[in-house]
Each structure stands twice: as structure tokens, then as C-alpha cells.
């Protein structure tokens, strides 16, 4: 019995020493994974995920503190990419964090705007320009469509407008397999 304990204790000692040395020798600093996750996130900075921006959400995912399905702007596709990167199982978008919407930009109704600057303070990417008591306007190409400017507006003069299709950004549609009834019958 004593022998057994001695042997096991000896083993534990040797292995513990080896591991302790390795832990010091192979210490890792920083986390390159966060960057990789952040690169997938759409950078809307909308906070729908429950974190104050895309980077904090990326950090939370990397630490395993957040699910990968909390980003509505990234959509199903973003979740697929995250699942791929992290080797996790795909989950459909969590409803409590929002739904996937077509890309849109904020538009300020300039007739109504009172120039309160509240939206300017809310915009995470400084895409609204204007000064106190001046009409504000959204720089559309910079707007991420995060909707963070909607709640602060005291006069509800900001609306989200989906970015329309033009010849430049028109996309070929997914080929639809159509089997018409005539073909169905003839074969």
C-alpha cells in the first residue's frame, strides 16, 4: 500500500514539475482570436448583441461568455462564419437580440429636425453632421444602419430607409428551379 502511494506521489511530483516548467516556458500573451472574430462582425456597432460595440462582443465570444448568434446585422451568414471559425455548431439567430433586416440608412427629415445634437452624440461612427440648433444630416455612405440615433431624437425626425437597388449594386438572383405543371405531366 505504502509503495503504491509512494509511486503515485513520485509520479505526480515529476509530472507536476514538468507541467509547471512548461506553463512558464510557453506562456501566451494577448488573444489574436478577438481580431479574427471582430473581422467577421459587421461593425454596425449597434449594440443589439448586448455589448457596447462589435469589439466587446468579439471579446466576449472569444472568452466563451457570449453565444455566436447574437448579432442580427451579421445575419445567418455571419453566424455560419463564426461557427466555422470557432468550430462551434451553427445556431439560428437568437430572437431576443433582434431580427435580420435589409440594409438601410438613417435619414433625417430636415423639415422637422430641431438641431438638438442628441443623435450626433449617439452615432457610433460619426456619420451625422451638424451643430447645435443647426439642421443635422446623415452622411449616407458612412451610416451603418445601427438605429442608435432613433431613440434619442425628441421629435422622431429620423427614419430608416432601405438602400435601394441600382445598376451598380444589383445582384444576380439565386437561380430558381422552376418545374412547371406541363413538364411535370409530360414526364
Amino acid at each position, binding site marked *: 500500500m505504502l509503495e503504491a502511494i509512494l509511486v503515485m506521489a513520485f509520479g505526480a511530483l515529476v509530472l507536476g514539475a514538468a507541467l509547471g516548467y512548461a506553463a512558464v516556458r510557453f506562456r501566451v500573451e494577448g488573444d489574436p482570436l478577438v481580431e479574427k472574430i471582430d473581422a467577421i462582425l459587421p461593425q454596425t456597432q449597434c449594440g443589439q448583441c448586448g455589448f457596447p460595440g462589435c469589439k466587446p462582443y468579439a471579446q466576449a465570444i472569444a472568452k466563451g461568455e457570449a453565444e455566436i448568434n447574437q448579432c442580427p446585422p451579421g445575419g445567418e451568414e455571419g453566424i455560419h462564419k463564426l461557427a466555422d471559425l470557432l468550430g462551434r455548431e451553427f445556431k439560428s439567430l437568437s430572437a431576443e437580440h433582434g431580427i435580420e433586416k435589409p440594409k438601410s440608412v438613417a435619414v433625417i427629415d430636415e423639415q422637422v429636425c430641431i438641431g438638438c445634437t442628441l443623435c450626433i452624440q449617439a452615432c457610433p461612427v460619426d456619420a451625422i453632421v451638424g451643430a447645435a440648433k443647426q439642421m443635422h444630416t446623415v452622411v449616407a455612405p458612412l451610416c451603418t444602419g445601427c438605429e442608435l440615433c432613433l431613440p434619442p431624437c425628441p421629435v422622431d425626425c429620423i427614419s430608416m430607409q432601405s438602400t435601394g437597388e441600382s445598376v451598380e449594386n444589383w445582384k444576380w438572383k439565386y437561380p430558381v428551379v422552376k*418545374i412547371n405543371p406541363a*413538364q*411535370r405531366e409530360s*414526364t
Partner: protein
Amino acid sequence: MNNSPYFLKPASVQSVMLRVLVALLPGIAAYVWFFGAAILVQIVLASVTALAAEAVMLRLRDKPVMLFLSDGSALVTAWLIALTFPSIAPWWLTVLGTLLAIVVAKHLYGGLGQNPFNPAMVAFALMIVAYPLLMSQWPKVDATDFAGQWEAIFGSRQILDAMTMATPLDALRTVLRDPEQRAMIGGILGSKATFGNVGGRGWEWIATGYFLGGLYLLQQRIITWHMPTAFLATLFVVSGAFALYEPDRFAGPGFQLFTGGAMLAAFFIVTDPVSGATTPRGKLIFAAGVALLTWIIRTFGAYPDGIAFAVLLMNIATPLIDMYTQPPVFGHKDKRGDSP
């Protein structure tokens, strides 16, 4: 309305599959001539089962049943199953094998074009593992008594012993497994009653039939030369080399090529485009791999004919073979192409 191109070459999956079936006919004719009409019963059994299973699966998967059923792919699978199973196997064996092939190996993977494993070979491998005895009761050559065969398929299996015999491959394996008999292999292979002139009496003519059908497929450009050539050449070289090295222990290339399912495999089984490799180099590697594994399993393994296992094993490797044998794309063929 559709987009360009606005006109298509007249070609269809259906016509491809039909021509494959036509190409099988000479082999089937020889089969009937030497082993009786039982094989026709099996073909009908397998075909009916395959079509029924296909229809049910298509309905369950909510696909246009008649359209996809008429593509003929289920029939090709069914015929290959019938031709690889013993022609006097009990009816339920063929039906079960066909069901497994169509349902599990084909439709669970998404149907035609998506199955990673050759369905007919899945059926054969599953059945030979589950019912090794039934799967090795082959009819006697020239015993073409149809009533007896019908009885064997649908009725009692009592009369079987009188009608069955070991296939040349089986006989060879029994001999090879016994070190004492091994010395006499030359004599055994020479006995014309069992082994005919080349690959076993009857068997060699069936193989010739398949060979003719294969030439038709080549002429019709349904298959390319890569697979049959690589398969037959590899089998020839490997068996030839070993037969030269120790003729008493290893059967020669003539026997290996003309017995069992080698010819059927060369032109009809390894050439299955869905589960096989698709790049030119990949096809060569794939077929050569099947041939090598077939020879290894035939010679050293526990199963009489290794084609089914060899095909499945190479099916497993197919995605990787395809991935690493991609032909160079236009403009990326040489160093200059990538860095001017």
C-alpha cells in the same frame, strides 16, 4: 425567362443512363447463356424495388417524382446490384440490398449526384458482411435449369447444394489459404472445367460482354479512357508481377482480369462519376487505387472479391483525391503565368 445561354446541346441524364443500360446487355446475354435466366429474375426484382424505393423517397423528400424517377439512375444501380449478387440469391437478399442502396446510400445523402459512396457497392458490401454464406452461393456453370433456379430464389433453399459451386475466385482463395494445396495452384488453374481458358468457364465470356459494352460507352463518350485503362493496367501489372515472381502462389493477370467483377468494375463501377474522382489525374489515381486494393483483398483478404470494398475505400478518399489533383486553371499553368 431564362438567362444565357439560350440554347442547349441536346443531351440528358436520361439518355446517358439509358446508354449505360444498353451497354450492359452483351454481358447479361452471356450471363444468361452460361448461368441461366435466373439473372433476369434478379434484374427485374432489383429494378422494381429500386424504382419503388426511389419513388417513395422522392415523394418523402418532396421532389418531382416522375421527373426524377425517369432519369434512369435507379435502374442503373439496380442492374449493377443484380449483376454483382449471386443470380440464385434469395429474393429478399436482392430486395434488401437494393433498398439499402437506394434509401441509405443514395437518398439520405440528397439523391442523385450527391452520394459519396457507390450505392451498388454499398449494397454488396453490406450484404456480404451480413450474409456471407448466401452471398457466395453461385450457380453452377451450364446448369441453366430455370425451374430450379426459380425455386432457389423464391422457394426453399434445400436443393441448393446441387446447383451451386464455388466461383473461380472462391476456389482460388480456398486453395491459397491452404499452404499444402498451394503448391498445386498451377494445376488447379489449368483445369478447364472450373477455370475455362482464361478467367473461369462462363465468367470469361461474361467479362468479354462487359468489355464490349465498355467499348460502346467509350465510343459514346459517356466514360473517358482514364478509369478503365488505369484499372485494367494496374490489375494487369500487379498480378503479372507477382505471378512472375511466384507463379505457384499468385494467379496471373489473365485470370484476374477475366474473372469475377473485374471487367464490370473497370467499365461500369469505377466509372460512376458521382462517387468517383472527376479530374483527369484523379481518375487515374482512383481507378488504379481500386485495382490495387481489389488485388490485395482478393489475394490476402477474407472476402472472395474485393471490388466492392476497394471501390468504397477509394470513395472515401475521393474528395481528397479531387482536391489535390485539380488541373491548373487557364493562365495559372506555369510560373510565368503567376508572376510575369
